[in-house]
């Protein structure tokens, strides 16, 4: 058993930290707040130049071929600085689905383009009546000559305004909650009959609603096998979920640092308010929650990397913990910093906005508690 990061891991983490410091700031976040995309392509391109888009993809597809755990340090630093570039959706969802479920020709075509930063992808799977359940899928794909015709609606597609291609979960057989009968298709942004409605999320980033009106796709757009799309989709979702946990832990650390710095300086009743035990004990609780979240997240990463039997459970433990803790930490930070936290001038509020979004993404605490209990068999 060993959870220590190697010096290579730490080097990557450090270079991510200096990248975020150099290319990004809270000032930039303020400027991007009302931008429709909420990020900029020049920074995204620079990340690609560093090889970060293909970090965990094999070298044969233009990747760096590193272990999954290398993403951990990168994401922690993205989370610390609240870097908004759509790394997670492209690398962990879109590209990862192609890598794990795609044909050789799909991999050869798509992965090098992701690696170079020329192609952005995401996954469209959430629906209005399914909350977070992956097997709830009513968007239909019916056989139509040589290909398929897709109809229905997907909601809150992560980074949906910037993605060039969507990987969509569709129902090809069975009833709406069946685990069998789900098929994945790659749909380009400009497909005829695809309506894209942009959404700004609370954290200043973007998502979209997708309405499919008889969108025709060729059979070659199918990712993996007909009717058997869910296992690979779940596997990829687990990896993306672990990834967002790493980002959340980074965010918690930063929120704690900012808060402690503030209460060490803010003077009331003639002394720094950080000397008061009422505040100190709340700060201690923030630290405790962050530490436990970090451990659960590390365990999830290690389980995925080692492909253990219980990795789905480890991921649900981590997400249930991180979602609750990130919200708890940032709301406490809000309380300790007081009125200033409400302002756009202060940095701390941005973390609460991110916690609200990240807490829901890929399932909230209650969803993962339920999933954990089901996986455990009670």
């Amino acid at each position: 058993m060993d959870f220590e990061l190697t010096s290579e891991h730490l080097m990557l983490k450090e270079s991510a930290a200096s990248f975020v410091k150099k290319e990004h700031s809270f000032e930039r976040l303020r400027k991007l707040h009302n931008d429709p995309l909420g990020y900029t392509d020049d920074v995204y391109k620079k990340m690609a130049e560093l090889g970060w888009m293909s970090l965990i993809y094999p070298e044969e597809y233009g990747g760096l071929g590193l272990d999954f755990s290398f993403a951990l340090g990168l994401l922690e630093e993205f989370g610390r600085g609240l870097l908004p570039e759509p790394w997670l959706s492209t690398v962990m969802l879109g590209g990862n689905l192609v890598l794990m479920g795609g044909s050789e020709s799909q991999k050869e075509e798509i992965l090098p383009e992701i690696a170079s930063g020329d192609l952005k992808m995401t996954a469209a799977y959430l629906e209005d009546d399914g909350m977070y359940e992956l097997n709830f899928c009513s968007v239909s794909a019916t056989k139509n000559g040589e290909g398929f015709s897709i109809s229905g609606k997907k909601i809150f597609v992560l980074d949906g305004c910037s993605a060039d291609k969507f990987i969509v979960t569709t129902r090809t057989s069975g009833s709406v909650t069946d685990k069998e009968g789900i098929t994945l298709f790659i749909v380009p942004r400009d497909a005829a009959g695809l309506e894209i409605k942009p959404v700004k999320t609370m954290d200043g980033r973007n998502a979209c609603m997708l309405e499919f009106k008889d969108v025709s796709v060729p059979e070659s757009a199918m990712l993996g096998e007909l009717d058997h799309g869910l296992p690979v989709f779940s596997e990829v979702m687990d990896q993306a979920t672990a990834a967002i946990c790493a980002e959340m832990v980074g965010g918690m650390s930063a929120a704690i640092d900012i808060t402690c710095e503030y209460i060490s300086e803010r003077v009331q009743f003639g002394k720094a308010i950080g000397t008061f035990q009422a505040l100190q004990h709340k700060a201690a609780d923030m630290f405790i929650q962050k530490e436990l979240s970090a451990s659960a997240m590390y365990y999830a990463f290690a389980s995925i990397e080692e492909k253990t039997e219980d990795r789905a459970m480890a991921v649900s433990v981590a997400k249930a913990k991180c979602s609750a803790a990130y919200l708890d930490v940032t709301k406490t930070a809000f309380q300790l910093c007081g009125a200033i936290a409400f302002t756009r001038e202060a940095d701390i509020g941005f973390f609460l906005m991110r916690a609200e979004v990240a807490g829901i993404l890929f399932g909230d605490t209650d969803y993962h508690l339920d999933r954990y209990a089901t996986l455990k068999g009670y």
Partner: protein
Amino acid sequence: MQVSYSQDEQKFRDEVRAWLKENTPDEIIAQTLGGSTLDPELQKKYHKILAEKGWIGPAFPKELGGAGFGEMEQFIFNYEYSVSGAPRLKTQLMSVGMIGPLLLQFGTKEQQERFIPDMLSGETIWCQGFSEPNAGSDLASLKTKAELDGDELVLYGQKTWISIADHADWMFTLVRTDSSGRKQQGITFLLVDLKSPGVTVRPIEALTDHAPFCEIFFDNVRVPVANIVGKMHDGWNIAKALMQHERLNAFPIGELVYAVETVRKNAEKTKFRGKPLIEDPVFRRKYSLLEIDCQALLDTFFMLISQLKTGTAPGPQTSFLKVYGGELYQRVMDLDHEAIGSYGMSWYNEEFGNDVHQATMGMINSRSLTIWGGSSEIQRTIIATQVLNLPRK
């Protein structure tokens, strides 16, 4: 990164598990979670079983009769031991677990030879007498006086909240030998034979109808200066070193896992609307929250062991293990008590079985976890000032 045990670690775990299964008497498992009500004679008996196997002191050097386990082996052993349902042995906790390692570090050769063999064999039961009626969280304000008279110290005063003092032969304690300087100065760490004239041990009756701890009165008790550990007046530093021995193994994570499993067993037995309580969506959610919190704490132990292996000693941040672990343990016992329904109104029940005793006693006894050894409030202040570096004034 590696999440599973190595082959050697797995082999060791299997060996420990198999041995415990074979050699732990049912009567002793039945008393776990009941904690302080554990029969001392039964404890002594099990202590000897472990001692014969050579496993009584997981961290203790082999040449002195301990197990001499490395960090990972210690964790595996302690975890398997308590998850099996075997109780924390007070015969071992205070001796091999606390004063023994301290004597190896600071004791004289004579002290080591005199006390350690009997600790390991289980012949001598030790207790810890630190607290006083007016020195709890503020331990350094202790007042029990010890005056030098020839080559003896003469003790006068009172110690309290001493677990199993009514069965103990010896006590390690802190006494005031000088009041002229700062309160942390002038304290001496002393070993006291409880059979000495002038010692009165009075059990304190607790809510649970048992006496989990005692108070001890010293009325001109004479203790040879040869029983001082370290230097005279330097006891505060010795006591701080003692706290470091606790480190990771102070919190019984395996016992917590055992307790969580007990909740589930009880919630399968108790019926609500004709179905096992565990299937009730509200209870199920409450229970799964405890399970994931418990798992996250276990993951934290794994993280810290990884750090220990590479030589990064955990510092004051381990305070959070005690705070969170203690509070989580209480939440688990609260739900365990809830899971037995009406039976939770009684201390014991022959029909429902021993689970009632575990749930009720365990629920009350678990209150101690956030009080002893530096209360949760003290620990939070340590985290705030020593880990987060918040200003003290």
